C-alpha cells in the first residue's frame, strides 16, 4: 500500500515537473559521488596533508604579513580609483574584523551585534560634525569613546551570559540600536539619514575634486583630481586599521590581554586566580567597541551620508564571518579573510546572479578544508628561546 502510494506520487511528480525532478536526481547523483570520493581519501593522509599545509603556512606566514603590508601601501600607486575604493572597503572590514577579534577571538565573547558600535561611531561623527561644525580628526576620538561607552553598557547586562545566550542578547542589541536610530527622527533624521557630513581634511587642506584655493591639489601644485581624496581616505583607513592591529598585539602581551585569553579558556579558573572577571569582560567590550566606533566615523566621512540601512544584521554577520573564517584570535587570518570575503565578492562580479551561490560555496569549502579558520594556530605570547606555534590540530574548533 505504502509503496504503491509512493510510486504514484513519484510518477505524478515526474509527469508534472520533469525538469526539476531531473535536476534533483542529477544533484543527488553528483553529490553522492563527490561524497564517496571525499570519504575515499584516507583520513590519515588527509590529516598529514593538512598538518604539512599548516606547517608551510606558518613558515610562509613570516613573509605573508610584510608582503601584504607592502602591497597595501602600494595600492594607491595603481592610480585606479576602482582599486582604491575596493581597497578602502577591504581595509574597513579588516579594521572591523580586528576590532571584533578582541571581543570574540581573544576574550571569547560571541558578539553578534558588533554593527551597533559601528553605527554609534558613524552617527556620533555625523551628528557632532553637522551640528557643531567639528572636523573629522576632532570627532574621531569622541566617536570612539561614545562607542566604547555603549560597549560597556552592553557589557553590564551580559556579564553573566556565555556562548549562545550571549550571542542572542548581543544580536538583539544590534537590532535595538538600528531601530532606535530609525525611529528617533529628531536626532537622527530617521530613515532619511544624515547627509552633508564633512569630508576629512589634511591639516586643514580640503580634498575638493575641482581644486581651488585651500585645497590639497592647490597647495602642492598638483593637478586637481578626485583621486587625491580616495588616496587620502585609503591611507586614513590603513593607518586606523594598523593602529587597531598594533594595539591588539601590544595588549596581548600585557596582563589585560593575557586575562582575556585566560577568560576565553576558563572563567572559573580566572576567578580562582584573582582576576576580576567583570573588569576583564567590560574592557574587552569597550576596546572592541572603540575600534568599531573609529571605523564607523571613518565610514560616515567616506560616504558623507549615513542612514540606518547601512547598519543591518548582515554587517555583523559579515564581520563575524571574517573573524571565524580567518581563525579566531589570528590577526593575519582576519586580514586574509577580509580580503577573501570582500575582495572575493568583487572578483565574482562577472558571474552576475550566481555570485552569491559561488561565494557561499567558496565559504563552505574553506570551512570544510580548514575548519578552524585560515590561520588557526596560536602563537604563545611569551616563550623562552624559540617560539613554537601551537598547531591548529590542538586548537579547539570554533575557539581560539
Amino acid at each position, binding site marked *: 500500500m505504502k509503496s504503491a502510494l509512493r510510486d504514484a506520487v513519484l510518477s505524478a511528480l515526474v509527469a508534472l515537473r520533469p525538469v526539476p525532478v531531473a535536476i534533483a536526481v542529477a544533484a543527488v547523483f553528483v553529490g553522492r559521488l563527490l561524497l564517496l570520493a571525499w570519504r575515499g581519501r584516507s583520513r590519515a593522509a588527509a590529516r598529514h596533508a593538512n598538518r604539512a599545509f599548516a606547517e608551510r603556512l606558518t613558515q610562509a606566514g613570516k613573509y605573508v604579513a610584510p608582503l601584504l603590508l607592502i602591497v597595501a601601501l602600494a595600492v594607491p600607486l595603481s592610480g585606479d580609483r576602482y582599486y582604491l575604493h575596493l581597497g578602502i572597503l577591504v581595509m574597513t572590514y579588516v579594521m572591523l574584523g580586528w576590532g571584533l577579534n578582541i571581543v570574540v577571538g581573544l576574550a571569547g565573547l560571541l558578539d553578534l551585534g558588533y554593527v551597533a558600535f559601528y553605527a554609534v561611531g558613524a552617527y556620533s561623527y555625523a551628528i557632532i560634525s553637522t551640528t557643531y561644525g567639528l572636523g573629522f580628526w576632532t570627532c574621531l576620538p569622541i566617536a570612539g569613546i561614545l562607542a566604547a561607552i555603549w560597549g560597556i553598557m552592553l557589557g553590564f547586562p551580559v556579564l553573566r551570559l556565555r556562548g549562545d545566550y550571549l550571542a542572542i542578547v548581543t544580536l538583539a542589541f544590534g537590532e535595538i540600536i538600528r531601530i532606535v536610530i530609525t525611529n528617533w527622527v529628531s536626532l537622527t533624521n530617521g530613515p532619511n539619514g544624515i547627509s552633508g557630513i564633512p569630508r576629512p581634511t589634511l591639516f586643514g587642506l580640503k580634498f575638493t575634486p575641482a581644486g581651488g584655493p585651500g585645497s590639497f591639489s592647490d597647495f602642492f601644485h598638483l593637478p586637481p583630481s578626485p583621486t587625491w581624496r580616495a588616496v587620502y581616505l585609503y591611507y586614513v583607513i590603513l593607518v586606523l586599521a594598523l593602529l587597531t592591529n598594533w594595539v591588539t598585539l601590544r595588549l596581548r602581551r600585557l596582563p589585560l590581554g593575557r586575562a582575556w*585569553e585566560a577568560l576565553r*579558556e576558563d572563567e*572559573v579558573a580566572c576567578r580562582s586566580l*584573582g582576576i*576580576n572577571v567583570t573588569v576583564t569582560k567590560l574592557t574587552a567590550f569597550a576596546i572592541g567597541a572603540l575600534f568599531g566606533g573609529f571605523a564607523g566615523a571613518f565610514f560616515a566621512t567616506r560616504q558623507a551620508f549615513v542612514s540606518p540601512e547601512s547598519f543591518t544584521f548582515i554587517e555583523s554577520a559579515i564581520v563575524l564571518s571574517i573573524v571565524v573564517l580567518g581563525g579566531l584570535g589570528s590577526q593575519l587570518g582576519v586580514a586574509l579573510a577580509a580580503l577573501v570575503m570582500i575582495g572575493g565578492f568583487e572578483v565574482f562580479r562577472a558571474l552576475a546572479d550566481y555570485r552569491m551561490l559561488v561565494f557561499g560555496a567558496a565559504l563552505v569549502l574553506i570551512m570544510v578544508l580548514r575548519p578552524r579558520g585560515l590561520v588557526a594556530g596560536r602563537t*604563545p605570547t611569551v*616563550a*623562552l628561546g624559540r617560539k613554537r606555534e601551537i598547531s591548529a590540530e590542538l586548537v579547539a574548533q570554533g575557539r*581560539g
Partner: protein
Amino acid sequence: MSLLRLSGVTAFYGAIQALRGVDLEVNEGEIVTLIGANGAGKSTLMMTVCGQPQARDGAIIYDGEDITRLPTHAIMRKRIAQSPEGRRIFPRMTVYENLQMGAEVAGNVDFAALLEQVFSLFPRLKERVHQRGGTLSGGEQQMLSIGRALMSRPRLLLLDEPSLGLAPLVVRQIFGAIRELNRSTGLTVLLVEQNAFQALRLADRGYVLVNGGITMAGKGAELLARPEIRAAYLEGAH
C-alpha cells in the same frame, strides 16, 4: 593563631542547603584535611571560602579579617590560592603562560624565583614548559594546577581533590610535594579529599563532613584510628 576560621557558615544552591552551620579552623602552618563522601559539601565549603557561592549566614575570618562578603577576585588577592576541582588549567596556553597567569595577582614580583621554586618541586613542568597545557597528562596537569596556585605566593593553599583520577604513584608524588612545601616554607594547606587514608596520613588535623555538617574533628592520626572512620571511608579501599 588561626589563619582561617569559619563559624556557623551556611551555603545554598538556590533552595538547596549545601552547608549547615560549619565551624572549622585552620591554624598557621598546618595541613588540615576535609574528608567526606560524594555530595557531602566538601567542594562547596572550599568554594564558599572563595566567595562562590557566598555564605548566607556565619562568618569566614581570614587573618583576622572578615572576608565573607568580599567578591571572589578580592578574596583571591589576599594571598589565598586555590587549585580547583578538576584542575582547570588553561588548556590552550603553554605551561609557561599558565604559570604566568598564576603570578599575575601577586604582580609578577620575584617571578623567576617563584618559577624556580615550582620547577624544583615539579621538575616535570620544567621539561614541559613550552607544551600546551591540554597536552599534559592528568598528573602533570594537577602539578601545573598546584604550581599555578603557588605562583601567587600564597599563605593559604586550598587544594580540591588533587588525587582525583590519578595513579597511586602520582598521588604519592603530589602529596609528597605538598608535605615538603609545608615543611620548608610553612605554607598553610586546606585539603579536600575523598582519598581519606592518604589525606589523613598527610594532615595534622582532619574534619569529617557529612550532609553539609561537621560530624567529627581531630588529629589526623586519631581520626585514622577511629573505627567509624575506618568503616565509612577506609574499608575495602587502599
